[in-house]
């Protein structure tokens, strides 16, 4: 079996570090496939238990020598550890989690599917390819009267032009982007509009606010302003608010004075 990792030739910090040869593996499934192949049996006859143990041993070793593994690898390790326990320990009758067999089948299926896709990729690149094995007319002439557009542009051209433009502008004019702080007035306005939609039923505040909060960065300021605004609106009788316990969602509904003009 090839070495699964190599030692970093240089240590650039005070901590001794090992570097996984990430270039060698395309994620945990790829590593598992590699391990499975090293069992020298086909995937249908593979011992999933042995495979899980091998993988876990790999992760343990990596940790002992303080290799930082990508999260994908650790998630797989946790899943395999669970699979292992399912395979080894008889399940209690009322257990409705997946059985060890089901989990093992899932893993085998994913490995087979990945392997099949790799084989498919191989047969694809080995086909006779245009520009390498077969050739188009080297000196095309132009056909007149083509009703299709006089311009050539692909969706990719369009999208990459747009993405590049927006990115360029985002860097140079960050200030022009939408304001990131909600004013109290803005929050009031939004809440009042929401009250129109709520009707009489209790609704969680957050549910509505989320419609206006598309980025995590805005969330805090939106919640703060909206909360302050909702207290103000409750005092004016435009809405009623309720919370069943600390940290529970804040519920609100239309208040007795909801219909009063706002402007």
């Amino acid at each position, binding site marked *: 079996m090839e070495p699964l990792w190599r030692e970093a030739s240089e240590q650039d910090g005070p901590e001794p570090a090992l570097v996984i040869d990430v270039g060698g593996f395309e994620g945990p499934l790829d590593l598992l496939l590699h391990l499975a192949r090293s069992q020298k049996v086909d995937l*249908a006859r593979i011992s999933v238990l042995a495979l899980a143990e091998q993988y876990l041993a790999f992760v343990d070793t990596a940790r002992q020598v303080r290799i930082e593994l990508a999260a*994908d690898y650790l998630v797989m390790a946790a899943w395999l550890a669970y699979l292992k326990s399912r395979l080894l320990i008889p399940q209690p009758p009322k257990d409705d989690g997946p059985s060890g067999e089901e989990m093992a089948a*899932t893993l085998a299926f994913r490995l087979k*599917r990945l392997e099949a896709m790799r*084989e*498919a990729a*191989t047969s694809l690149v080995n086909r006779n*390819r245009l*520009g*390498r094995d077969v050739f188009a007319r080297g000196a095309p002439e132009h056909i007149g009267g083509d009703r299709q557009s006089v311009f050539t542009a692909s969706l990719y051209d369009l999208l990459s032009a747009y993405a590049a433009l927006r990115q360029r502008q985002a860097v140079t004019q960050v200030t022009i982007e939408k304001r990131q702080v909600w004013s109290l007035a803005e929050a009031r306005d939004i809440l009042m509009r929401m009250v129109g939609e709520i009707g009489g039923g209790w609704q969680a505040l957050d549910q509505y606010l989320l419609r206006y909060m598309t980025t995590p960065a805005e969330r805090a300021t939106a919640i703060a302003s909206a909360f302050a605004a909702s207290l103000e609106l409750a005092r004016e009788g435009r809405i009623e608010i309720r919370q069943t316990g600390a940290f529970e969602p804040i519920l609100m509904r239309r208040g007795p004075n909801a219909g009063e003009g706002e402007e």
Partner: protein
Amino acid sequence: MSFPQDHMDETLIDAGEAAVDRGIALEAERLAEALIFASAGPVSERFISERLPAGVNVRAVLMGLKGFYAGRGVNLVQVEDHWAFRTAADLSFMIRTDDAEARKLSRAALEVLAIVAYHQPVTRAEIEEIRGVQTSKGTIDVLMEAGWLRFRGRRRTPGRPVTFGTTRDFLDHFGLETIRDLPGLEELKGAGLLSGRIPPGFRIPLPLGDDEPAEDEDPITFDDIEELGLLTPGGQADE
């Protein structure tokens, strides 16, 4: 004008008097031939039919041409409903030049390309589920830039994720008439390997001791796939 008459077929024309119609059919064939020959890229059947005399069965003309060129150094090939002339594949090694090297793809890009080709329409999340790893930036990008992948539409599920598919250029490049001609497609489908769900009855023996023989009645085994010719020796995914 001299034409080899033997490959012409009565079916080229829908109806009419033999002599006149034969003349029309020959003219139609010459026109179609010239139109496709002039273009480096595949030409649509519709484009051709708009330029043929009314009443000519364009499909029959093209099939006739395809047969006529079948044994020659230049072949008429079909890519979906488009047609192109391409040099014959068996002459590859005689024509190949050093600068005519086909685009080299990374292993990751190749895998993504195959997954999209066989599973399309497919979302990015599904590609990642199959590969078991996040798709690095630049992988899909490279394939789209090559003109082989495209945004196909949106899945009608929550979040309406964008789906990817392959392009006609992809088919043209890999010498496929349609996506159904992908190598091993039917076998993979039959083995349940192109669906997100584990096929019913997909079980593997769980020999807790390593040396237990596999059960014979497994519906799908690796051997099956091998037998069906889906696996090339060595199992290498990259070139």
